[in-house]
């Protein structure tokens, strides 16, 4: 019992010092931390504990690719492709191109024509997806003997498209969120069809949602004139007015041909907020051509299938720049400019989960968590003192180190501290002393059974150790499962709990043992003090 290796003592003292040094910067105020960072070499200053969104305030938004929208886009593209092939091969069909749930069908009566068309249709697979080499085909091409040909997007094809949409979306979303000027946003893919956006410390979460929820597909189209063929036009909603407006299906210029967009004010007339934009060369040419041919007509500025405004073309616009007005507020003009600069999302994304915590509530939660932790720790410390006296002091010292270890662990792992995480720490404060209690009670028992003090101390530590390991393993298993299945704040709880369980073995067992051995060496007690 009395002997312990010097290296063990040294290791524990070193670990404790290291833990305190690692945690200390996190306890400083932000300005002091910055000062420390500027004075010392950066590798010497450990990072501070990362607070979860529930503590520092912020938004957690999960976006999901809208499957219905994705399918309809794919079917539309497929229809264009099929029409192009039929035209190129000069093949006649009976009836039009029909729609199925996930594809198109055409009836080609002539068997020779069918033989000409089928290989071309099958080739569409290659362009559709780059998931080649043995993967399941993204397109199904079926031909029945009566001349009906069906082209269908398969599940594999859809998954592939949605995965690609997510990849491209992440880039677009990053550009949009960066434009908000927030610090350290996190944008991650989740599974095949989701993107998780986490933005800490946001003052105005509404704007974030505003710019995340929009596809921002901008199109310039001509407004239909009376008497135009209805199959070439469609009715679209208007943003600031009731009722629909008929516009041509053909798109003159698309948003992807924009090179820049900035919010501004209408200089000539009302002085209302507008968005000024510039086209690239292709866009400028196309726009100049169309506007020259159609002076006097209305053209519609269409964003996500809604008409923002439909001004009249007064003169040909050939300079490659223009202005969008639509009775915007300053904020709306700002947001639209951000969206146009960042580009359109490749598919429609829906918000399937949102958790937003305002900065005020976050600070309240930090305060509440701190208060609970201080009171909880205080109560436990007092209770240990009045129950175990000098041994209680040892347990409390170990508890202090235990808490330092947990926080150091959080810093080293870079994991976030959440409110449930604080609850986990408070809980492990209660549980950490359990190991001490097990040992102390065993020592008492052995002493009552007639053993000498030294023999009781020895038996207490050895016998209780197996129990401590067994009981902590079960708790650790629960924490581990929680970690792998939980999300966000709950994960934070699992991390603190698991860390707490690991460190308790070092602090409650090894540390207290050394302290008691040293105490015994100097005090030479004749009676067990517990």
């Amino acid at each position, binding site marked *: 019992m009395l002997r312990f290796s010097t290296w063990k003592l040294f290791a524990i003292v070193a670990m404790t010092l290291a833990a305190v040094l690692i945690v200390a910067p996190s306890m400083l105020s932000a300005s002091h931390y910055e000062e420390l960072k500027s004075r010392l070499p950066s590798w010497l200053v450990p990072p501070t504990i990362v607070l979860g969104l529930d503590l520092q305030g912020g938004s957690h938004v999960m976006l999901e690719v809208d499957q219905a929208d994705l399918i309809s886009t794919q079917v539309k593209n497929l229809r264009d492709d099929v029409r192009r092939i039929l035209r190129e091969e000069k093949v006649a069909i009976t009836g039009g191109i029909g729609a199925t749930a996930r594809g198109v069908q055409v009836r080609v009566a002539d068997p020779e024509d069918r033989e000409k068309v089928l290989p071309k249709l099958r080739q569409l697979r290659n362009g559709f997806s780059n998931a080649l080499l043995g993967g399941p085909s993204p397109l199904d091409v079926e031909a029945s003997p009566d001349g009906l040909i069906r082209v269908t997007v398969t599940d594999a094809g859809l998954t592939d498209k949605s995965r690609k949409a997510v990849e491209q979306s992440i880039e677009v979303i990053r550009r949009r969120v960066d434009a908000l000027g927030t610090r350290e946003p996190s944008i991650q893919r989740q599974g095949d069809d989701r993107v998780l956006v986490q933005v800490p410390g946001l003052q105005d979460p509404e704007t974030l949602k505003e710019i995340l929820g929009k596809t921002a597909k901008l199109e310039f189209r001509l407004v239909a004139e009376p008497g135009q063929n209805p199959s070439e036009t469609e009715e679209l909603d208007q943003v600031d007015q009731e009722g629909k407006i008929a516009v041509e299906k053909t798109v003159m210029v698309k948003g992807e041909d924009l090179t820049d967009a900035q919010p501004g004010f209408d200089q000539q007339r009302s002085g209302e907020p507008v968005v000024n934009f510039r086209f690239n060369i292709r866009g400028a040419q196309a726009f100049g051509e169309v506007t020259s041919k159609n002076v006097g007509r209305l053209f519609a500025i269409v964003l996500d299938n809604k008409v923002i405004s439909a001004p009249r073309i007064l003169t040909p616009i050939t300079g490659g720049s223009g202005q969008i007005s639509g009775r915007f507020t300053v904020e709306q003009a700002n947001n639209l400019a951000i969206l146009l600069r960042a580009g359109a999302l490749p598919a429609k994304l829906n918000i399937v989960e949102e958790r937003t915590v305002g900065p005020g509530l976050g600070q309240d939660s930090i305060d509440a968590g701190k208060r609970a932790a201080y*009171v909880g720790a205080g109560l436990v410390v007092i209770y240990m003192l009045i129950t175990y006296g000098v041994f209680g002091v040892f347990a409390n010292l170990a508890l202090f180190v235990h808490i330092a270890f947990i926080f150091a662990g959080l810093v080293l792992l870079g994991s976030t501290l959440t409110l449930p995480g604080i609850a986990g720490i*408070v809980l492990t404060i*209660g549980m950490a002393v359990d190991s001490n209690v097990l040992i102390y009670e065993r020592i008492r028992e052995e002493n009552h059974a007639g053993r000498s003090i030294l023999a009781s101390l020895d038996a207490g530590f050895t016998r209780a150790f197996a129990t401590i390991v067994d009981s902590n393993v*079960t708790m650790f298993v629960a924490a581990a499962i929680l970690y792998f299945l939980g999300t966000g704040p709950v994960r934070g709880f699992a991390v603190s709990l698991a860390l707490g369980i690991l460190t308790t073995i070092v602090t409650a067992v090894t540390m207290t043992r050394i302290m008691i051995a040293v105490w015994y060496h100097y005090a030479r007690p004749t009676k067990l003090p517990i």
Partner: protein
Amino acid sequence: MKLLRLAPENTKFPFMRFRRVSYPFSALMSLIAVALFVFRGMNFGIDFAGGTVIELRAKSGAAEVGTLRTIGEGLHLGDIEVQAFGNPADATLRFGLQPGGDVAQQAAVERVRGAVDAYYDLRRVEVVGPRVSNELVQSGTLGVVLSIIAVLTYLWFRFEWQFAIGAVIATMHDLLLTVGFFSITQLEFNTTSIAAILTIVGYSLNETVVVLDRIRENMRKYKKMATAQMVDMSINAVLPRTIMTATTVMLALFALVAFGGQVIRSFSVAMIWGIFVATYSSIFICSPMLIYLGLRNEDADKAAQKHETEHKAETAVSARDEAAAAPANPPTAAEKTPAPSRKATTKRATKTRPA
């Protein structure tokens, strides 16, 4: 210095005798818990049911629950729940999934914002769509099931199979009663509650393992003692520790309930109940199960019953017991302990034996 002792010293409670009361009682309680779960149901939070929670703080400093309810009902969002809590300026609004999918959910939040923006700050907005809530239900259930399987496996390796079964039955019991607790109190059940349940599972096993460890140790030491008596002795031996640990954890939890704030209150309250139940089940459910599962040689159990009813001379029974047990149980490590400790244990054995 006089130190505080919550647990009396050297207790000799005949815990095993209570099994005729505790088993029917616990069975009844578990049935009630299941019935509550089925008929009364749980107050599922938006994590599992989907829907929206908005926490508001009145700019004037006083939230008007009645007005908020009227405003909420005017927006036609289905069942809307308005609650005040803690601070008089705060209130929460909660409503379920909106027909029309994820887009409609966001639109509903916008309508609420528009309606209350002038008088209230939105401090917290949580919206969970139908697909996400289904996934959370799945992962939550999976977590609870997996943790039970994992722990069963660990205990099976580490202890005799009876111990593992006993521990799992005790854990299931705690789980059922915790679910019943959520149902009867209608505390909101969300992902943090799953964390509470898994922590309770962990704590329950922690308690159980401490008792089982001692039973195993004593089983090797006192081969001649009747099982029930040996189990009683073990529980009494660890009782001070059980009470001590439950108290410290409770102290920490009460601090969380009182000061930890609204978000983790239901977690802390559930944990307090869980600690209570876990402590009870480790003593009254798990340990008697060992006897029912025939932990020892059958002869020993018969002898134990005889001992309880007839108060026969113990020496004769024990001799028979040892003779019968000898071929079945090869000598264990505990038996090979050196002479002095052997002496100490026999001395204690006589001391703890009822007169």
